[in-house]
């Protein structure tokens, strides 16, 4: 089980290294989408600081959903997905490895880039730390739920939009607690409750997500 996990994870990372531009696209999308908001809302520092956590979270959500669409598509197109599902090892390990690779390739870069965004939106250091901590707990949830959506919509004509429609409602709790934590800190309150709930959501999704994704892959490739 672990050897399949490691093998798939290393393979996905190696593939990503060979297609560097493709791999950077979610991050670029995240930054471009974020920098559109001040242009639309106006350059007032107070307003921007207030809406920053929400926008960062929504842009992270969209960046995850737009990139997760391709998570299984390439493997399905060249038939390797079917081979991996036929392997004696558990499909749950495959699903978990795929989610993990997606998080390392999209979630992690977003978290690393967030301090830069904090400067653009004039966030205070405590608020910025809360935002980064929230994203660190929340982006794996997005990858896990996104992978489920990608497995369900595998090979469908309107896959991309459909994935966003079915996954976004499920991500609302993560969005609420992630963005809420920053507001708590900015109001001078403790955000530990929000982080505990995000952590609980992460555990729940990490336990339930990969088996559901594995089941969805079996349904979609039958």
């Amino acid at each position, binding site marked *: 089980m672990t050897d399949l996990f490691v093998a798939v994870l290393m393979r996905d990372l190696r593939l990503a290294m060979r297609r560097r531009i493709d791999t950077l696209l979610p991050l670029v999308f995240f930054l471009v989408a974020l920098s559109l908001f001040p242009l639309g809302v106006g350059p007032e520092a107070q307003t921007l600081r207030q809406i920053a956590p929400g926008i960062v979270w929504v842009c992270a959500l969209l960046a995850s959903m737009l990139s997760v669409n391709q998570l299984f598509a390439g493997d399905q197109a060249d038939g390797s997905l079917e081979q991996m599902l036929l392997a004696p090892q558990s499909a749950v390990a495959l699903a978990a490895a795929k989610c993990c690779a997606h998080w390392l390739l999209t979630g992690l870069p977003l978290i690393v880039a967030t301090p830069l965004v904090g400067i653009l939106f004039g966030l205070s250091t405590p608020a910025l730390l809360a935002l980064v901590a929230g994203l660190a707990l929340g982006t794996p949830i997005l990858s896990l739920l996104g992978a489920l959506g990608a497995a369900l919509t595998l090979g469908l004509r309107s896959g991309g939009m*459909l994935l966003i*429609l*079915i996954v976004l*409602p*499920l991500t609302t709790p993560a969005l*609420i607690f992630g963005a809420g934590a920053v507001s708590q800190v900015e109001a001078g309150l403790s955000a530990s409750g929000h982080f505990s709930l995000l952590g609980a959501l992460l555990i729940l999704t990490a336990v*339930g997500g990969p088996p559901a994704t594995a089941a969805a892959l079996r*349904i*979609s490739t039958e």
Partner: protein
Amino acid sequence: MNSTNPSQAVLPPGSRLRLFTFAAPARFYALMGALLPWLWGLTIVLAAAGLYAGFFVAPTDATQGESYRIIFIHVPAAWMGMLLYLVMAFWAGIGWAFNARMASMLARAIAPTGALFTFLALWTGAFWGRPTWGTYWVWDARLTTTLILLFLYLGYLALVNAIDDVKRGDQAGALLALVGSVNVPIIYFSVKWWNTLHQGATISFKQAPTMATTMLVAMLIMTFAFWAYAFATVFMRTRAMVLEREAHTAWVDELAKGRMPS
């Protein structure tokens, strides 16, 4: 192969009634056909009685005036919207786990009715909110959860309709509905902690209801009317689906020949 025309006999003579008798599409089709006129009749009678009681018999509310009367549609619709999602997830799960075709068809047939009730709850809630709260929409816990529930219905409908293969559509829809039903309480509580303005539940099983008896009776009658309506529309939709999916079978062929004179 039994050649009894199922449109005439719900249960073929001489056969015993068993637990799974109506899991056969032909028998289910006939049973639903027999029940439909009663269900529609029940819907009309109950809705007429409930609306009459709600609009003409129930007293005017002391604080909200006449505008509260929309609850006779709003509250039952909201109940049905939530309940039907769980019922849909249940039947979709049964259909997936036991490969039961009728259960999967039932789940698909429930989704549009559930979405309709959820939309109706939001719509009537907006009309109630305007005179009472002074705004059509507020981002409070129950409104937001209901809106997300509507999105979950739409996601389910979009997914099952985007998949051409019937079996894959049924199973993928079942998985999504089950994941969604696990998520609904989480969404509800997260949104509740986020912001709350909606008045607390008026009807609770823990304590005596604080509303006039006539109001309660009218609301319960409307709830039963919506139940009957939900059964009727779901059965009609299921019947259409049975015919579509069983089009290659002998009994549908006979049915078509019997109905349409050549």
